[in-house]
C-alpha cells in the first residue's frame, strides 16, 4: 500500500540535502571563526563601583558587592583576585602589592577577603556580581585597609602553547579593578599638614599658579575640604577657589593645582589656604605671597607718558619762543610807529 516516490525526484532531493549540509557546515565554521576573532580583537570591560568604602568592626564579618560587566559581543573568561594596594605618588594612582617583598601589613586586608570564585566567565553584554566576604580579625587595629578586587581576562597563554606556535609573541593581560577602602572601627589617628604651598614670587600676568601638597600622617585616608583665597594687599578678596576634594592615602602627600586671579593684576597678593579634614574638623592653613606686575606694559606706558611730556614741553617751548618773537616784532613796530609820529 506504500506509495512509491517517482524515481526522477530522488537525486534532486539528495543534491538539495547535500547543498544544505555544506551550507550549514560552512556557516557554522564561519561563525565559530568569526566569534573567535572578535573575542580576541576587542575586550571592553566595566567595573562598578570603581571605588567603595566599608566600615567594619574588629571581629565582624561583612561583605562588599562588585560587578564586572562585559560590554563586548563575546564571552570573556579570566581570573578573579584580590590584592592589597597602596598609593605611592602624589597623584593618587594605586599600586598593587603582589610580590612577597611588597607586603604592607599596616594597610593590608587582602587576607581578610574571601571571593566566591577563582575564575569567572562573563557572557556577552552581561555582568557577574561578586560578593566578597570580609572577615576582620578580632585584633584588627582601627584605621584604614585598602584592597583591590580585580578581574583578569587574557594573558593566560601557556608556555606550551607558545612553544607549540614556534613564533615570538608578547601575550597581553588586562586587569580591571574595583578599589575598596575598609575602615576598621575605632579611634583613628588624624594628622595632616601642608607640605608645600608654592606660587611664583613674581609674575608679569595672572592668573597665579598655586601648587599645594597636603600630607596625611594618619592611619586612615582623608579628604580635605576648603578654599584657596586670593587677597589684595588691602585684604580684599580677589578670587576664591574650592580645593578639589580628593582622597589622600595614609603616609602620602596629594598634589593640588589651582590658578587664582585674572590676567590683569597689579601689586602684592596674599594666597591663603583654609581647609579642614577628618571627623573632628582639624584645620589646615597656609599662606604665600606673590607679586604680579605687568612690567613691560608698565614700562611702555611710562615711556609713552615721558614722550608725551617731552612733546608737550617742546611744543610749549616753541610757542613761548614764537610768542617772544612776536612780542619783539610788536615792540619793533611800536617803536617804528612812535618814530613816524614824532
Amino acid at each position, binding site marked *: 500500500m506504500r506509495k512509491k516516490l517517482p524515481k526522477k525526484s530522488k537525486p534532486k532531493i539528495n543534491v538539495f540535502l547535500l547543498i544544505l549540509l555544506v551550507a550549514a557546515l560552512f556557516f557554522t565554521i564561519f561563525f565559530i571563526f568569526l566569534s573567535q576573532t572578535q573575542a*580576541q*580583537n*576587542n*575586550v*571592553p*570591560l*566595566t*567595573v*562598578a*563601583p*570603581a*571605588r*567603595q568604602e566599608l566600615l567594619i568592626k574588629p571581629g565582624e564579618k561583612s561583605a562588599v558587592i562588585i*560587578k564586572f560587566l562585559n*560590554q563586548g559581543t563575546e564571552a570573556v573568561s579570566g581570573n578573579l583576585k584580590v590584592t592589597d*594596594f597602596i*598609593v*605611592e605618588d602624589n*597623584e*593618587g*594612582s*594605586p*599600586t*598593587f602589592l603582589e*610580590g612577597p*617583598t*611588597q607586603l604592607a601589613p599596616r594597610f593590608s586586608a587582602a587576607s581578610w577577603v574571601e571571593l566566591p570564585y577563582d575564575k569567572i566567565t562573563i557572557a556577552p553584554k552581561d555582568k557577574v556580581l561578586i560578593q566578597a566576604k570580609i572577615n576582620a580579625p578580632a585584633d584588627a587595629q582601627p584605621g584604614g585597609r*585598602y584592597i*583591590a578586587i*580585580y578581574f583578569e*581576562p*587574557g*594573558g593566560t*597563554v601557556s*608556555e606550551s602553547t*607558545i*612553544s607549540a*606556535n*614556534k*613564533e*615570538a*609573541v*608578547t*601575550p*597581553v*593581560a*588586562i*586587569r*580591571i*579593578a*574595583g*578599589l575598596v577602602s575598609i575602615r576598621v572601627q575605632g579611634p583613628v589617628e588624624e594628622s595632616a599638614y601642608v607640605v608645600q604651598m608654592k606660587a611664583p614670587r613674581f609674575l608679569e600676568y595672572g592668573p597665579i599658579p598655586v601648587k599645594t601638597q597636603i600630607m596625611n600622617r594618619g592611619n586612615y*585616608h582623608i579628604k580635605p575640604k576648603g578654599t584657596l583665597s586670593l587677597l589684595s594687599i588691602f585684604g580684599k578678596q580677589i578670587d576664591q577657589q574650592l580645593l*578639589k*576634594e*580628593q*582622597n589622600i*592615602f595614609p603616609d602620602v602627600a596629594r598634589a593640588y593645582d589651582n590658578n587664582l586671579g585674572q590676567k590683569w593684576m597689579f601689586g602684592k597678593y596674599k594666597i591663603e589656604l583654609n581647609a579642614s579634614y577628618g571627623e573632628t574638623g582639624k584645620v589646615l592653613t597656609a599662606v604665600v605671597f606673590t607679586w604680579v606686575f605687568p612690567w613691560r606694559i608698565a614700562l611702555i606706558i611710562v615711556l609713552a607718558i615721558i614722550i608725551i611730556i617731552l612733546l608737550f614741553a617742546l611744543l610749549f617751548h616753541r610757542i613761548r619762543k614764537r610768542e617772544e618773537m612776536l612780542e619783539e616784532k610788536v615792540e619793533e613796530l611800536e617803536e617804528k610807529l612812535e618814530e613816524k609820529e614824532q
Partner: protein
Amino acid sequence: MKRTFVFLLSLFIFFLFLGFFFSRPTKLESASLTSASATLSNPRLSFYGAVNSGVSAGATAVNIKTSGNYGDKNTNHLFPKDTVAVGPNGNFTVASIVDSDTFMVGTGLSAPASDGDAIYATQSGTLTVAFTTTNAIPANGDVIITIPDPATNGNDGAPDTADSTTNNGFDFNSITTSNITCPTGGSWSVTSATAGSGSGHTVVCTTSSEIAASTTLSIGIGDTAVGLVNPAPIYSGHTQGLADTYTISVQTRDSGDIAIDDIEVKVAPVEAVLVSATVDETLTFQVQGITSGTAACGQTADVTSTAYSIPWGTLSTADTFSNASQKLTVSTNADGGYTVKIEENDQMGKNGVTCVGASAGEANNCIEDTTCSSSSCDQATGYGWTDATTYHGLGYSLANVSGSDASFVYDSDDPCSTSAGAGTFCAKQFADQEVSETKATIMSNNGPVSSKQVYVCYRIAISATQPAGYYYNKVKYTATATF
C-alpha cells in the same frame, strides 16, 4: 378735550416707559473669554507642618507632628535641599529625610522651636493667565484677575492651609504693581495689585486704547523677585499626590467696570515627586587589537595584534624594527579620574627563560628591554628610538587618539613628554617586574572622562647575533580609578 387728555396721557405713559427703560437698561449677558489658561511656573504645593515636642537651639533633627490641622503630617513632601523655616528659624536647608516624621537640617538651629511651631517650606513662582477676548475692550477698560486667598494671613509670605480649597488659597507675598506684567501691545498699565482677606487677591490691568475682539492677552503675576506663594495642602480630605484645585477668575470690563467677558480657570498645585537614583561609580576599560598596515605612533603596524597578544611571528631580519599597536579606551564617571598602568613580567626570554636583572641580553638568551639611544631610556624616562642597528630590544611608545591622556607621546622631543615636538618614536621600556621596577602610568586623568583613547605602540628589533629560539614575555595593563 377728552381726546387731548387721552393723547397727553398716552404721551406721558410713553415717555415714562421710555425714561424707565433708559434709566434702567437691561444688563447685557457677558460672554465667555476663550482659550483661557492659568499656568504656575512652580506648581509644587508648599510644605506646612508643625514641630513636635520642640527642638533645642543647635539641634539638627526636627520631628514633625503626625496629626492635627496641618497641611503636611509627614515628611513625604519635604526633600533634601529644600529651604525650611522651623519656628523662629528661617532659611535652613534640609540635609536629609530620616523617616516619615523626622528630617535633618544642615546646620544646628539658631533658636529653639517650640511644640506646635510652624514648619514651612515655601514654594513660590509666577502665575501666568492667558486668554482671548471675545468682545472688544473699550479704551480705559480693564482686565481684573481674582486669585483665591485664605481668610487670614494671606499676604505674609508664608504658605497657608485650611480645611478646604474654598477656604484656602495663595499667599500674595507682598506683591506690588511692580511685580505684575500686563499684556503687551495696546497701552496697558497696572492699575492695582491688592491682597485679599478672604474674597480673593485682585490684579487689574487697564488699557488706554481699545483692544479688539479675538485678541490674545497674557498677564503675569509675580516675577523672579517676588513670587506668588503656593498654598500648602488642605488639612482635610487631601490625598498626597492628588492636586488641590483652585479657581482663578478673569474678567474684562469697560471703563465703568461693567463686565464684558469673563471666565474661570483652574490651577492645580500638587506635591512634587522626588526622583532619585544611585549612579554607580564605574570604570570601563577596552583593549582593541590593530590590524597590520594601520598607522599608529607615526609607524605602520607590521603585525596584526589582538586584545590579548602581540604575535611578532618570526623575527628573521636583524637590525630592523617590527611595529605593532593596540588601542586602549577608557571611560569613567569617578570624580577622581583613572589611571592605566603597564608592566611586563620579565624581559623576553628564550622559551620563557628568566632574564635575571634589568639588562639581561643575548648572552642570557634574552631580548633585552631597549635602551632607545645613547641617552639610555628606562621605564620612567623615555628617549627617541630610531636606530635599529645599534639599539635593539623591546620598547613602546604612545599616541593620543582621543583626548590627551597619554603620559607621553611618540613625537615629543627628548626626553619623552606630553608635548608634541620633532621626535619620531620617543620610547620607554616596560616596567620589569622580575626586578620590581615601578609600574608606569600610561594613561591618566584626574576627572570623569568619556572614551579617551590612546595607541600603545610596541616596537622590537634584534641583532644578527640574537640566538635563535622562541622568545616571549607577558605585558599587563591595569586599569583602576584614581584613589
